[in-house]
Structure formats: C-alpha cells, structure tokens
C-alpha cells in the first residue's frame, strides 16, 4: 500500500515537473537532520566533525537552494536504535526534516530507514557498514553512500587469502554490522579456496580481548579476522600484538579500519596491516585540497565517512536545486540519474537498491620510516573497480530489484 502511494506520489511529482508546474520546496526550507554517535565509541570517525563536513557543504552552497534556506539540526544517536528511532520520528513527524544524514551503527541505520520509509523522507547513510542495508533491509527511502561490508571483504579478505591465509578464525562484533561482515568475509574466503574454522561473537563494545585472542591462537588458524570496528578493533590489535600473535606466524586481518583508528594505533603498531577503504585524503590534488579545508575547520584529517558526508550532501542539494523539490522520491530519482564526479568519487552511481557504487581501494599501513607525518598513514596498493567491489544486483535480495 505504502509502496503504491509512493509510486503515485513520484508519478504525480514527475508529471508536475514535466508539465512545467513549479514543484515546491516544503516550508521554503530544506531541513537536514544530522544523526551520529557524538560521544561514544564511533564518535571520531563521523561525530561532530561529520557535522562540520555537512556544514561545509551547506556553506559551499551559499546556505540556500533555489531561494529556500537550508537548516541543520543534529542529535547524538548514542549507538542506540531506540534513541535514534524516537529522534528521527520527532524530526520527520513534527519538525519537517527532509533529509537524515550521517548514521553510523548499522543497527541505527536499519531502524531509522524503516521510519523514513513510513514517512516518505530521505536518508543518506554515510557511516554504516552492513551490506544488508541495501540488501534485505533496502527501502526506496535511503541511500548507502560510502562503503559496505561487501567490498571490505572483497578487498581485504581476498587479498589475504591470495597471500596464503587459507584458514580463518573470526572475532565478530555481536550485532547487525558484525554479522553482515562475517557473512561477507566467509563468502569471499570460501570462494577463494579458504575456510573459516571458528568464530567468536563478542559483546559490543568489549575492552578486554585477551580471552578471545587466546582462543584464536589456540585454533591454529592462519588468519585472525577482525569483524568489528572502532575501539573494539584497536583494542583487539593491541592485545594481539601483546600476546605475540604475529610472532607465532598468524596474520591479523582487520576488515574495517578507519583513518582515526590507524592514527590512534600509530604506524609503529599498525604497520603492514592491509585494509579496504572508500577514500583516502592523500590520493590526489582534489582530495588533498578538500582535506586541507577540512583540517582548517577541525584540526584533523578526514575519514572516508567525513568526505562522504560532504560529497553526498552536495549531491543531495544539487538534486534539490535541479528538481526544485525536496520531495524524497523526486530527489532520490534525480540523484540516481546523476553520476557522481567530485573529490570523493569518479563515475559514482546510485543504484535502484540505494547503493552508491564507486571504486574502492586496497591500502596498506605505512611503516614509521615511510610515514612523513602523523596522518601520512596509507599507501594505496590497488584500486578495486566499482563493478568488482559491490554486491551485483543479480545477487540482490532487495525488494526494489526485480530478480
């Protein structure tokens, strides 16, 4: 029923545009709600600096689009689907928020996207990882922009298996994101002739990993795969190095590492770790130029999530400008029709399932000798082309894809 309504709405909207009628921006305001972990374990990879990135995009747009002013509200999601749901419900039902941006913990994004679907508003998810967000949890009301667990597994896991890491032991964060990543890694490892011989699902968050590292050591697996993020990953890596994991011949594969994590670990501890990333600040003049501006605002180098928030907000505002509307379906369609070419992506494309597909990069953390400053941390080993990176639509379980 709601699906039908949406189709109708968008049909009417496009008809209005085709007939030249002026599609309107509601309340003469484009209101963006920024939702992210502002104080917890995922704060640094998005958080307050993500809000800065969003504001940079709005400032670059002159603070208004087609004469309508652009407003921002923000909230701390506390990594809690419940808290986030009530915030977003208030935003869309009482405060006329048109777009929800940011969003980090996958469980938060999945909960929020359902509310957006009920109310027919748009969400652009930049921080989350679970590939299920545009697979079984896809809606016509959200876009997943920066990366997901599918290319993380494709990039890092296949590289590690090809280097001889045949047997894997997984340490998985016990919630939606960890499960999705574990599933995607298992698929890639098996497809490349390897095997996952054991899994521990640890509570999120966990401070002490010694017990889990010990179990992983006892398993005798070639590779210990870390399907977690943020402080969980850095704690696991620190503990692994303390317990002599690498000396005993096992390899660590951190499947999701953000620049802020590597910065916290330092080149000394993190050197040689391979990771997959959607973007790195020091790739070309365009990325460096934007990163310099970001650093002036925040004092730190941007993560791929920060860059994605800026880029996706620009794409959104451009779509609002082109269609003269802030209606979710009209804007989403315009965004899908427009290839993304900016500091974040080249020939990026938003698919019908809401997945923004773009090139990904396999990177390796530099050694202290190679690193010239505290943020000079990655060397890019390989560009993974967009079509090779993401889950093909032919394998999709998304209800918007006709399979």
């Amino acid at each position: 029923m709601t699906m039908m309504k949406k189709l109708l709405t968008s049909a009417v909207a496009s008809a209005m545009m085709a007939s030249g009628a002026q599609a309107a921006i509601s309340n003469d305001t484009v209101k963006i709600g920024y939702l992210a972990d502002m104080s917890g374990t995922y704060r640094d990879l998005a958080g307050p600096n993500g809000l800065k990135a969003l504001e940079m995009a709005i400032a670059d747009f002159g603070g208004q689009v087609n004469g309508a002013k652009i407003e921002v509200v923000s909230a701390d999601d506390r990594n809690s689907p419940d808290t986030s749901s009530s915030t977003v419900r208030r935003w869309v039902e009482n405060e006329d928020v048109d777009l929800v941006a940011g969003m980090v913990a996958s469980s938060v994004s999945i909960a929020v996207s359902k509310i957006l679907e009920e109310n027919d508003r748009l969400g652009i998810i930049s921080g989350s990882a679970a590939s299920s967000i545009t697979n079984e949890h896809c809606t016509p009301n959200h876009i997943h922009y920066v990366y997901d667990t599918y290319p993380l597994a494709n990039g890092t896991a296949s590289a590690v298996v090809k280097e001889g890491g045949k047997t894997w032991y997984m340490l998985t964060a016990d919630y939606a994101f960890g499960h999705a990543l574990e599933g995607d890694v298992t698929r890639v490892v098996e497809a490349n002739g390897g095997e996952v011989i054991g899994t521990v699902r640890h509570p999120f968050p966990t401070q002490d990993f010694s017990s889990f590292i010990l179990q992983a050591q006892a398993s005798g697996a070639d590779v210990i795969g870390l399907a977690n993020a943020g402080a969980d990953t850095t704690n696991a890596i620190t503990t692994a190095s303390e317990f002599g994991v690498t000396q005993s011949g096992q390899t660590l594969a951190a499947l999701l590492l953000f620049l802020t994590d590597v910065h916290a670990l330092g080149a000394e501890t993190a050197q040689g770790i391979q990771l997959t990333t959607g973007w790195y600040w020091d790739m070309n003049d365009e990325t460096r130029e934007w990163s310099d501006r970001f650093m002036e605002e925040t004092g730190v180098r941007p993560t791929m999530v920060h860059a994605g928030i800026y880029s996706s907000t620009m794409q959104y505002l451009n779509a609002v400008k082109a269609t003269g509307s802030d209606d979710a379906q009209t804007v989403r369609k315009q965004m899908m029709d427009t290839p993304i070419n900016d500091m974040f992506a080249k020939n990026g494309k938003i698919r019908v399932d809401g997945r923004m597909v773009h090139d990904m990069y396999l990177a390796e953390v530099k050694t202290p000798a190679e690193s010239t400053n505290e943020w000079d941390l990655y060397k890019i080993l390989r560009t993974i082309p967009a079509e090779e990176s993401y889950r093909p639509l032919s394998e999709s379980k998304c209800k918007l894809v006709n399979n």
Partner: protein
Amino acid sequence: MSMIFGVPVAVLSGQLLIGIINGAFYALLSLGLAVIFGLLKIINFAHGAMYMLGAMTTVLMFDYLGVNYWAALLLAPLLVGAFGVVIEYFLLRRIAGQDHIYSLLLTFGVALIITGVLVNWFGVSGLRYTMPDMFKGGVNLGFMFMPYYRAWVIVAALLVCFATWFMIEKTKLGAYLRAGTEDSQLMQGFGINVPLLISLTYGFGVALAAFAGVLAAPIYSVTPVMGSATLITVFAVVVIGGMGSIGGAIITGILMGVIEGLTKTFYPPASSAVVFLVMVLVLMFRPSGLFGKEA
C-alpha cells in the same frame, strides 16, 4: 588432548589465568569503591572517571613531560588522589549525612562533566601509550603465551590490594579511620582531625582507581570513555561482595574475573552479562552480599 565440556584443558587453563588477570583489575577498582563506601558511605559514581583519569594522566605526562611508567605509577595516583581530595572538600562535604542518593547523583554528575570535557579535547579514538621496554614480550607457559606485562599486573594489583586491606583492618591508622566514621564527634573529642581523615580517605580510594588506570594504560586503548563501561561491572562486583566489605571486594573481584573469563570461552555473547546474572542471584539469596554483614 584431554577435554572438559568440549574445550581442551590447555585452553581452559589459559582462560583461567586470563580471568585472574582481569579479576585483579576488578579487585583493585572495587576495592577503592568499597573503601569509599565502607568508610564514608559515599556511592562513588565518579570511580570510572578516576580510573580513566589515571590512565590519561599517565599518557599525557609521558607525552608532554617525558614522565616514565614507573614514575607515573606513583605520580598519577597522587595527582588524581589530590583531585579527589579537592572534590571531597568542595563538593561532597556539603552533602555529608544526607541520603546516599545525593552522593550518587553528585559523583555521577562530576563523572559526566570530566568525561565530556575530555571527549571534547581528545576524542574517543584513544591515545597512544607504548609499553615500557622491559615488559615487551612474554614467556610461553606451554598452555598459553603469557605477556610479561600481564604477570606484572597480577603482582602489582594483589600487592596493593593486600596492603590496603592490611592498613584498614590491622593498623592503628585504620582503626582511627573506622572509628572516625562510626562516631566522628567522639573521635574529634580525642583530638583526631576527622574531616581531614575523611578527605584523605576519599582521596585514597580515588588514588586506587587511578593506580588501576596506570596499569591499564599500556594494554587498553586510553580514551575518555574507557571508565564508563568498567564502572558498572565494578559496581556489580562490589554489590556481590557486599557493599563496604574490603576483603569481600578483593575476593569477589578475582572471582568475577574468572567467571567472566570462563563465559568468554563457553558462551561469549553472555560474557558482558554474566556478572549481572551473578549479582541478581546473590541479591536474591544473600541480599547483603557474599561477604557483607547484615545491615
């Protein structure tokens, strides 16, 4: 290889040892809480923040002043303890004698402020602290690889725990302390400066938390939020041991470390909940805790 419930004995021994190490941390932290509650009847919700301050001070003193690990082991608890005395003197003293809930709310507020300010300054990704060179590496015990540092944690924590217990339960100073909190007017009549004694006791409890923080700095990522999760577990430990029981806090701390470690082996998803499960059971059958005196 011999097995117990499908887990090799070697793995199990390793997990037991890890449990004891983590238990030593719990013991140290719950000991501070128990000292503060047992002697001052203050429910110190700022304890996690003080643990975090101990770790942060260690890292910052090293980064900016070059203070090494051994000096930090002494200096960080002193500094944080002094900070605790300031809090006691300016804030807690004003609500002395009121219902417990006031000290709980006040210290909780203090913890939120400290954490919030530091999150703003340092973020949450963690500060780097390198392990002192002499602790790098470890020894293979046959059933597990034992990092030298973890062995040191057990020794240091147990020494401090024992010294604290001994001081409070067996020395004259401890007797003054206990008497001062029991009947402060009478003690003051004997010429003992009870308010000073109370300030110092709070400072000492806080210093114990900071000491645990220094021990944690080389092995956990040091962030302003590191105390909040630990605090709740440690409170459960104190409740299980019996609020205010010094010896009980130490023994229960180690016991809970072991139980948590075993849960991590047999059913990891429950490992963050098992301590609270034990707490529920203990409260049902022994409301004053395993080692508590009937109230």
